[in-house]
């Protein structure tokens, strides 16, 4: 069913009681052309583009729980593409361009809002790094501006940024095409669009092992039985090491909790995404009115989806340092997601030592923004059994050659 004003009106007349399911409840078949392990945003996007752009119709997406309850529903919804290195800028910019037409493409309102992303500089060093990054971005055709302290104050009067504040703002790097999107809608939209193209989305189906014959993957074992596949893509952010261990593959990944908070809803006060590196916090205001606040990740490996209290304490300290106006705001929810972090803070997309088993992992603290682009290039990769040109340098082999894409230093706080 196509969503439209007419469909809305028709369903309003019947009290909204007859909307059909957004995607089919599928059973696992015994064989597929491609199986995607992991039904988060990236996995669903991969399945969608495989069906849409490459005509592959016999696809399954396996999800351990229900769609959208993993990292897809746990991030802080920031979208941007202002990465320093050429490889990253090309990949994330491709993703941002897909975001710009996504709601129309999926016939699903992803609430993508290009409200701008502003990175604040508090030290001379941060400012110099921003100038360098802005130069690199402009050379790569990515939009970017540097603001003076006066311009920052004009755009963000709430900010305590004057000479008398503890951390006077020296400038800011702005990407106006950046912004936020509704994370659940992205998963639901891709699931619905993929399902309409014939993709089987199998929920409550946990992977228990791979069938590997002669160095080549032949299928999966799951809690709902086995299934054969010509090719398998693993997109299981937060559990990449655990899943790949089932295939006997070790990864250059460590998994950490990353926490976030949401405040009670208030009237619109913050019209852009603000990120601060030195005073470590980043935030935006959702359309519902809640402040969505992100922090640093915890420092120890964990799969528990909870972190240490002192991390959010520091995060709120940073928030109040920059925005004293929020001091009496109550926080409604706090949670953590598990992020798979690579040594260079860039993702791993490409081959594994097992033939026909491909991986898309290690997006660290910033995978949400890459959802459309990641799915697009991974679908191309699975369809052609050859890495998409944009991810040629993102393979596992870089941890042997030493040709890292070191965004770790360039990221600052920003995710």
């Amino acid at each position, binding site marked *: 069913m196509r969503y439209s004003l007419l469909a809305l009106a028709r369903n309003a007349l019947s009290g909204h009681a007859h909307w059909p399911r957004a995607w089919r409840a599928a059973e696992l078949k015994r064989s597929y052309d491609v199986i995607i392990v992991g039904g988060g945003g990236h996995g669903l996007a991969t399945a969608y583009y495989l069906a849409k752009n490459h005509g592959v119709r016999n696809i399954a997406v396996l999800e351990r729980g229900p769609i959208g309850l993993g990292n897809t529903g746990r991030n802080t919804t920031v979208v941007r593409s202002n990465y320093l290195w050429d490889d990253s800028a090309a990949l994330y910019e491709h993703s941002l361009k897909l975001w710009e037409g996504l709601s129309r493409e999926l016939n699903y309102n992803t609430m993508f809002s290009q409200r701008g992303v502003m990175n604040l500089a508090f030290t001379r060093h941060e400012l110099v790094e921003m100038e360098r990054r802005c130069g690199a971005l402009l050379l790569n055709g990515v939009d970017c501006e540097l603001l003076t302290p006066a311009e920052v104050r004009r755009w963000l009067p709430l900010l305590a940024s004057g000479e008398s504040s503890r951390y006077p703002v020296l400038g800011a790097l702005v990407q106006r095409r950046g912004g936020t999107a509704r994370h659940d809608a992205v998963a639901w939209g891709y699931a619905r669009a993929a399902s309409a193209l014939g993709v089987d989305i199998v929920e409550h189906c946990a992977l228990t092992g791979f069938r590997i014959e002669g160095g080549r993957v032949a299928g999966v074992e799951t809690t709902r039985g086995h299934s054969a596949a010509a090719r398998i893509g693993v997109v299981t952010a937060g559990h990449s090491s655990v899943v790949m261990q089932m295939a006997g593959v070790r990864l250059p990944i460590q998994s950490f909790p990353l926490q976030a908070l949401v405040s009670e809803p208030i009237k619109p006060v913050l019209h852009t995404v603000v990120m601060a590196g030195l005073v470590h916090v980043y935030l935006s205001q959702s359309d519902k009115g809640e402040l969505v606040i992100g922090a640093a990740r915890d420092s120890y490996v964990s799969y528990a989806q909870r972190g240490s*209290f002192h991390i959010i304490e520091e995060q709120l300290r940073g928030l109040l340092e920059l925005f004293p106006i929020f001091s009496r705001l109550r926080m409604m929810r706090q949670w953590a997601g598990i992020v798979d972090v690579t040594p260079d803070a860039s993702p791993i997309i490409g081959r594994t030592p097992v033939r026909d088993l491909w991986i898309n992992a290690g997006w660290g603290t910033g995978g949400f923004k890459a959802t459309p682009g990641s799915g697009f290039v991974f679908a191309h990769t699975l369809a052609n059994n050859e890495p998409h040109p944009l991810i040629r340098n993102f393979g596992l082999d870089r941890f042997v050659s030493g040709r890292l894409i070191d965004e770790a230093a360039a990221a600052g706080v920003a995710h």
Partner: protein
Amino acid sequence: MLLIPCPWCGGRNDSEFVAGGETFIERPAHDVSDAQWGQYLYFRRNTMGAQAERWFHAMGCRRWFNVLRDTVTHAITETSPMGAPLKAKQ
């Protein structure tokens, strides 16, 4: 919040410590292949369950030590000074 039993100072809040990741990683000889060097430098077990790791008591005695910690329950079952093994089997 973790309560970490430092072998020298006793149980302390985890905000006093720096997590050092997986422990007992042996540095290979200089003439190993790039693949083996890459394994040493970057690849980790990233265990789900009991993991042997090293912690640094940065705001206390400033010593490194080994810890056996469950990465799902966060329960710490054993510690040992640097250079000494953990009793539980890895």
